[in-house]
Every structure is written in structure tokens, then in C-alpha cells.
């Protein structure tokens, strides 16, 4: 059990890690303390203690069904934890809704992307944050801004007027990420942002995250399956196993090998236990 107790001073250090990305400004952007969550008889999260430094990029790894997505949905206000607390910039907050979490600067990209197939690209990019000149939508302004942002990111789509349904998986994902990135979020939560993407799109998104990291203005939690990509882009890695954070190291202090070994060892141990009983 390598879980760090909350409040260890390490996160507050203006650490010099992260290679050419420069030091972190210091302090915690987000801290989760003793988060627990059950769905009926199923316990998804037992006791989650997690911290995210200002400007830090934290990789959250773990098996399927370990509770990563549940944790993300709690941190963005979509679900309420059964126990435990969340601190934003050191202040305790109750994230009572997605809207409220957004107003505090927490923005999420869900695994299912939360895009509306029937709506155009630009309406999706401004979903629930529409620009309005009451009572009408300012479609032109939203269309122009969406086009500018997607061009800046290097994402080519035929037109921002087409419904999202007509785009490829990778393009849809890029749009969901663009929506979150351009929302002036202070904390960005990304659930498998690279899952359905082609090589070029992966490069675009990794560049984008790298760019955010360089500026150190946004703190990011990335849920990932690919250990190599996670180590490449994240400052620090947390491993989530059976509802707890069981591993917490700087990326430079660990390796794909070590992460693999831990997960495989865990699997073997569980298998043996099952065989014994």
C-alpha cells in the first residue's frame, strides 16, 4: 500500500520536475479526501485520497471497473460521494451539480463524450454555455468561435455546421476535448481522451495537453489505459485499484515496466486468493 496520506507536503513543493515544462506554481488545485461511493451492493470507491497540484497533469490509471470514471464523475459534480470531502484551492466545496462545478472552473470530458448527435458541431461546443442575445442564440458568434478554436487546435472538420453524428470517432472526441479546453476551466478532467483516436488525432491532443502544461494555468487529471502515453504527458501517476489509490509517484520516478508489474502482481494475487477459496 503505497498510498500517500493526504496533506503530505510533497504536492505543495514547487517541484522542479516535468522536464522542460518548468516548475509548478505550487499549492493544490484540487484535493479529494476519503471519498467513498457505493451503488447498491457494489462498492465503487472505498477511500480515495488524491491531490492535484496547480498546473499539474496527473495520470489516473487502473483496471477496467476500478472506479476511475466514478471518481471523475464525483469530481465534476455529476455524482455525489457517499462520504468524504472535496477541496478546491484549499476550500471545502460541495459539488451539488455539474453547472455548479463548472462555475467553479471544473470541466470534464466524459468517456461517452456527452455530445448530442443531432446538433451541429458548434452547438455541441457551446452546449449549456450558449451565447445568447436574449431571447435568441447568437449562432454566428458561436459558429465563428468554434471554427477559430478548432483551427487553432489543428482539427479539420468539413464544417462546424454539420451534425456531430456525421463525424468520425476521433473527430468527435477532439470536439469534446476542445469544448472543455476552451471553457476557461481551471481544473480539467479527461476520461480516456485518446481512446477512439487515430495517430494524427492523438498527436494533436497530446500537443494540446503539452501546451496547457507548459503554461501551467490549468490542472489536469487524465484517465488513461496506455501507460506509455500517460508517462509521456503526465507529471505524476496515480494507480486506482479496488476503490483506493494504491500508487503515487512522479512520472520520472517510474516506468511502464513498474506499472505493469504492479497491475500484473495484483492480478496474480487476486487469482491465487480465488483459487484458494
Amino acid at each position, binding site marked *: 500500500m503505497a498510498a500517500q496520506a493526504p496533506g503530505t507536503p510533497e504536492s505543495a513543493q514547487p517541484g522542479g520536475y516535468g522536464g522542460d515544462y518548468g516548475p509548478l506554481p505550487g499549492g493544490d488545485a484540487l484535493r479529494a479526501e476519503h471519498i467513498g461511493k457505493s451503488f447498491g451492493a457494489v462498492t465503487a470507491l472505498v477511500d480515495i485520497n488524491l491531490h492535484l497540484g496547480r498546473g499539474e497533469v496527473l495520470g489516473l490509471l487502473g483496471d477496467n471497473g476500478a472506479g476511475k470514471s466514478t471518481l471523475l464523475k464525483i469530481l465534476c459534480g455529476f455524482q455525489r460521494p457517499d462520504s468524504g470531502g472535496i477541496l478546491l484551492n484549499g476550500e471545502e466545496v460541495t459539488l451539488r451539480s455539474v453547472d455548479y462545478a463548472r462555475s467553479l472552473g471544473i470541466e470534464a470530458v466524459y468517456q*461517452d463524450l456527452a455530445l448530442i448527435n*443531432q*446538433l451541429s458541431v458548434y452547438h455541441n461546443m457551446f452546449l449549456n454555455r*450558449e451565447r445568447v442575445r436574449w431571447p*435568441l442564440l447568437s*449562432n454566428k458568434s458561436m459558429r465563428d468561435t468554434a471554427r477559430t478554436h478548432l483551427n487553432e487546435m489543428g*482539427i*479539420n472538420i468539413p464544417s462546424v455546421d454539420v451534425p456531430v453524428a456525421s463525424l468520425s470517432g476521433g473527430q468527435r472526441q477532439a470536439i469534446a476535448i476542445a469544448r472543455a479546453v476552451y471553457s476557461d476551466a481551471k481544473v480539467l478532467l479527461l476520461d480516456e481522451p485518446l481512446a477512439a*483516436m*487515430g495517430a494524427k488525432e492523438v498527436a494533436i491532443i497530446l500537443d494540446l495537453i503539452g501546451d496547457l502544461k507548459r503554461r501551467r494555468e490549468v490542472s489536469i487529471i487524465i484517465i488513461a489505459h496506455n501507460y506509455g502515453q500517460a508517462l509521456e504527458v503526465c507529471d505524476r501517476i496515480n494507480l486506482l485499484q479496488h476503490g483506493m489509490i494504491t500508487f503515487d509517484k512522479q512520472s520520472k520516478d517510474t516506468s511502464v515496466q513498474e506499472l505493469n508489474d504492479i497491475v500484473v502482481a495484483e492480478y496474480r494475487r487476486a487469482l491465487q486468493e480465488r483459487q484458494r477459496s
Partner: protein
Amino acid sequence: MSKMTEQGGTLLLPDETPGTGNGTVDRLRRGLGVFGRQREATILVVTVALLLYFGLTNPTTFVSRTNAVDLFSENAAPIAIIAVGEVLLLICGEIDLSVGFIYTLAPFIMFYLNVYYGVPALLAIILSLVFGLVCGWVNGFLTVTLHLPSFITTLGTGFILGGLALYLAHAEPKSIPPATVGYGDWLGASPWSQTIWAVVIVAIFAVVLTRTRWGLHTIATGGNQLGAREAGINVGRIKYGNFMITGVLGALVGVQTAFYLNDIDPLAGGYQPMFYSVTAAVIGGTAMLGGSGTIIGAGIGAVALSTLIDGFDVVGISANVVQIVFGGAILGAMIANVQLTRLRERGRT
């Protein structure tokens, strides 16, 4: 990265529609294309064709002021106004079967308030609309808060409202309260008033659906309810609101029709106006799958249905045959709708 095969890195180029070099022909073709892509195009063509057919074959009877009033004010307008509410509900994945009974009961509310309780005429009319609002709220409460499927919710509330109307009125029609007659002209008694109401309501809600946050969130709610919630949209509020809009519109049509027919009948309304308006919505291009629909289309659909009802009446074909045609029209429209959507999705990039 198991899903990496999908569209690996093939990003589309910005679209450049190749022109033929001939400006006018090009513009015309693009114009036709834009028109053809509008979901309302099909129903508009069908409606115009129907109007032309009945008009050309019955130049004296069909093309007359009396008949036009029948077609638009008596038949089309009530269907169109209720269809506005049903389209909003169908888009967010719900339906209201009870709206026709709100229609039945609303004029009785006006009658009893004015005649028995001495409520001033205008206030009685407004309160009958508030009654529709409350009915919509109850439908929303049962569907959203208590998680009943709206089909069942409104089946139940429809029976209750229909029963209440019969019970309160002892199954007897009432005459329009004299005090309200002055407002009746504005609402529905004069020949064109109901048509004007319908056009204005369709126009307003067409803008609400396509150009406001409410419309966008209604589409989002029906298109991807989980996604809409994840984006922070209060989908419950959207559904409550659309049930309430439908309730008010149902009550309005009930009161209007009572004035138009100069009679408050406990057997007016019922399922027929609801089924007609859902039919209008469907043939107008609203799929019952949620997430898409058009209010203008439903308005035109209401005219198409009314043209059939009225046209067959003029020609002298029995109303029973009309029902067969309706059935065919619903199925035809739905087949076109579903198959076109499938084609569109297969052709997706």
C-alpha cells in the same frame, strides 16, 4: 487503444463544393439542394399537391371562403396548435396522450368559474389556461419526478380528465357564458381568428425550437439524455416545461373550439385531436425517436391532414375512408423518415 482502427487519422479536408462554372444554374441547383434537404420539403410538396388536386377537381365547392374557413380554422388550426406541444414532447422523448382531455375540460373550467363562481370573464379564460398549465405540471411530475413512462402517465391523466368532464357536466353540453362572448371573437369565434392564432403560435415555437436555448436543450434532452445531463442540462426541467406548454396549448384549443362551435361539449376533444396532431407531427418530419423534429413541418402536416378530411368531405367520400388514408400516410411518412435516416448514417464519413 483498441478502437484505434476507426478512421485512423483520416481527417477531412474543408469542403469545397465544385461548381460547374455556370453561375445561375449552379445557384439554382444549390437552392434546390438546400430546399430538398429541409425536412419540411416533402410535406410541403404533398400539401400543395393535395390542395391543387382538390381545388382543380372541385373548383366551386372546395375553392370557397366557407370551405377555406372550414379547412384552416375548424380543422387545421386546432391540430397545428396541439401538434406544436406534441413536437416539443416527441423531441425530448415523451408524448402527451391526455392533451385532448385538457382540451375537453378547459372550457368547462371557464364556464363554471364564470357562471357559478362569478369570476370575471377574462380571468375565467386565463384560469382555464392555467388549468392546462397545472395539468401539464402533473404530467411532468408523474413522468419526471416519479419516473413513470409518459405514455402511461398521460393515459391515466387523460382518463381522469375525460371522466371529470363528463362527471362535472353530467354528460350534458353547456352554452357559452354570455359574459365571455366578447373575448370569444378574439379567441376563436370569428372565422379566421383560430387560423391566425395557429400561424402565430407555430411561428413563435418554430423560433423557440431552432433559435433559443430552450429549443436546443429540448433537442439535447431527447438526442442524448445522459450526455445532456453530463453537460449540466437540467433535463427534468425541460420535460416539465414542455408538458406544461402542451397543457396550455391543449386548454387554449379547447376554449377556442368551444367559442368557434358556440357550445361546450363534454364529448369534444378526447383522443382524436391528440392522434391527429401526432399524425401531423410525424408526417411533417418529426421522428418519434427523440432528438429531432420540426414545428413548421407539423404545421404543414396539420394542413395536409385537414385538406384530406375536408377534401374527402367535399368530394363526398365517407370519413371512414379518410382514416385508411391517414393510416397509410403515417406509415409512409415513418418509413421514409426511418429509412432516410439510416441512409444518411450509412453515408456518414
